[in-house]
């Protein structure tokens, strides 16, 4: 059976003037559908870089990054954008919500940029359902800058899954949250994986998160420990 995501012999080096920093060395791994994977390791070990390679945001590496058997480098830029929009959901440590939009509008952004033929009202209904399932039904018209960290991250989760992706990538999603909120976010992650059978890769330092994962990968000096 084809893996959802496969990294084959991937190496990545950051170059800054004369300085070279190899963060990934001949890394290979597979992620299956419905898997909740945690990636841990010290800062600078290349955890976030893995997410960028899997999503096709970063193409400057050696080796191959495949999604359902297709090499991301073989796609055109527009195809990769479409792939990210339809197959990938992103959750960031800094949330990266658009401050000029309301909560509901932020959740709808991936549907807007896809410019699909799906009716606007259908998108809106789905966004409202997601917000309700995340306990934000009464916040849909709120200004995102008025929300707490936990609430913002829940908005980001709703935005990540609005297009029903096959894979959600979360980069330190609980890094700015207190333990109690972290627990609730992890619970939402578990629900996403169980309810929609999508895969989840979480880059984290937090044991509360990694302890709930199906599998934990520890990166050390660019390789799996």
């Amino acid at each position: 059976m084809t893996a959802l995501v496969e990294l084959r012999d991937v190496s990545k080096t950051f170059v800054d003037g004369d300085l070279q920093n190899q963060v990934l060395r001949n890394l290979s791994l597979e992620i299956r559908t419905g898997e909740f994977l945690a990636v841990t390791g010290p800062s600078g070990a290349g955890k976030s870089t893995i997410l960028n390679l899997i999503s096709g945001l970063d193409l400057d590496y050696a080796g191959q990054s495949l999604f359902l058997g297709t090499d991301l480098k073989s796609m055109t830029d527009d195809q990769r954008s479409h792939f990210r929009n339809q197959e990938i959901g992103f959750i960031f440590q800094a949330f990266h919500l658009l401050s000029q939009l309301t909560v509901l509008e932020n959740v709808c952004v991936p549907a807007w940029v896809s410019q699909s033929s799906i009716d606007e009202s259908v998108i809106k209904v789905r966004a409202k359902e997601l917000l309700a399932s995340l306990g934000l039904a009464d916040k849909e018209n709120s200004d995102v800058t008025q929300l707490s960290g936990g609430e913002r991250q829940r908005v980001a989760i709703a935005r990540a899954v609005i297009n029903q992706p096959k894979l959600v990538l979360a980069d330190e999603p609980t890094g700015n949250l207190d333990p109690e909120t972290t627990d609730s976010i992890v619970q939402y992650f578990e629900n996403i994986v169980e309810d929609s059978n999508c895969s989840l890769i979480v880059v984290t330092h937090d044991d509360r998160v990694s302890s709930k994962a199906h599998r934990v990968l520890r990166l050390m000096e660019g390789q799996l420990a």
Partner: protein
Amino acid sequence: MSLGTLIRRNLFRHQRRTMIVATLLASGVSGLLIFGSFSLGIIENVATPLLPKLPVGLIKIEPKMLGFGMFGFDSQALGGGLDEKAIARLEQTPNVAAVYEIIGAGFPLRAQGGAKLLGRGIRTDIFATGVPEELVAEDIAEGYQFKDPGPNKKVIPVLVSRRLLDLYNTTVSQALGQPKLTKEALIGFSAEIVLGSSYVRGTPDPSKVQTLVGQVVGVSDEATLVGITVPRQTILRWNRTHAAGKSPMVAAYIKPLSAANTAQITHQIEKLGLKVDETQKLISFATLIASLVASGFLLGFALLISLSMAQAFSLMINERRQELATLRALGATKGTLIRMVLTESMVIAVGSSALGMLLGILITFGLDAWLLNALRESSFRPATFIEYSPGLLFGVPTAGVIAALAGALGPALRASQSDPAKQLRQ
């Protein structure tokens, strides 16, 4: 909700910067409209009436003068001037549609009369030219004819110079304390013409003196400045009687096949040793300079708008680099980002251009009223200093929008090319 919501919110989020860019653009558009409408108005309503109105596409040729110190000689006397051979050569010049000869009177003549029109009678020597009827057909007043009446008629149709009328109205009428003359007042006016007699040169042969009546039938740019212009057949007939058949050719008009051929034909004429009317050359030169100045202003204006838009959008995009990277991560294509930034600039450009046009129109009307009031005593005061052509009203806002889009294009492309992975790491 759609990308339009995002664009609208972006514009409102950066209200201060949006207002600065919009103000700059509106100022530029209104400035260009003011410049354009006054340029057109001054050319149309001030400069043109003061200059001889040479019809577009007609080239006037005069005999070349040879100068020796204070003396000038018509080169025709030396065999190199405007004659039948020269006319034949001109007719064979490429891209020439027609050649019209202007014949001068080869004998003295004078005129007297005008008391009814001018308040006092005038006696003066005059010069006369004869022109083909088809050259001046458009200048003949309704109900009148410009044809040789034959030897048995006393009333001769004459044309007077439009420039002479303008000169009279701008200088002579004031000096004489007389009201200004309109073209309509001149039509039908009659005065005596005495052929074969001059106040200065005397009367060479009293037996041939002939008194006729000249009646004004039109005002023309092709009429001679210092006398009267009659049909070509009339002057040829007069020359047969009073100048032993000698008919000096004083000028010729060339009609090019197209106005675009004017420069090439002018060059050919000068190669033939003939002289193109200096006034026309001066007007062509002045028009060229005015066009260059106007083009320079337009280019400068467009560059200014483009640069200010580029600067403003660069700043906006710099502030929004993480937001744009987020949109890329969420699946926006490069094309979507370019369209988004360009649509934002288009909204600003269209709104600002409309505002600039409105402001420009209000300011031009205000300035026009102020100038007209300030110059109410001047004889050069036109009815208005401004003119709006469809090209100006359509071209100015279009130039504003295009310049704004050109300015926003660079930042839009940079926004689409930035590395989202790098931006999201920061």
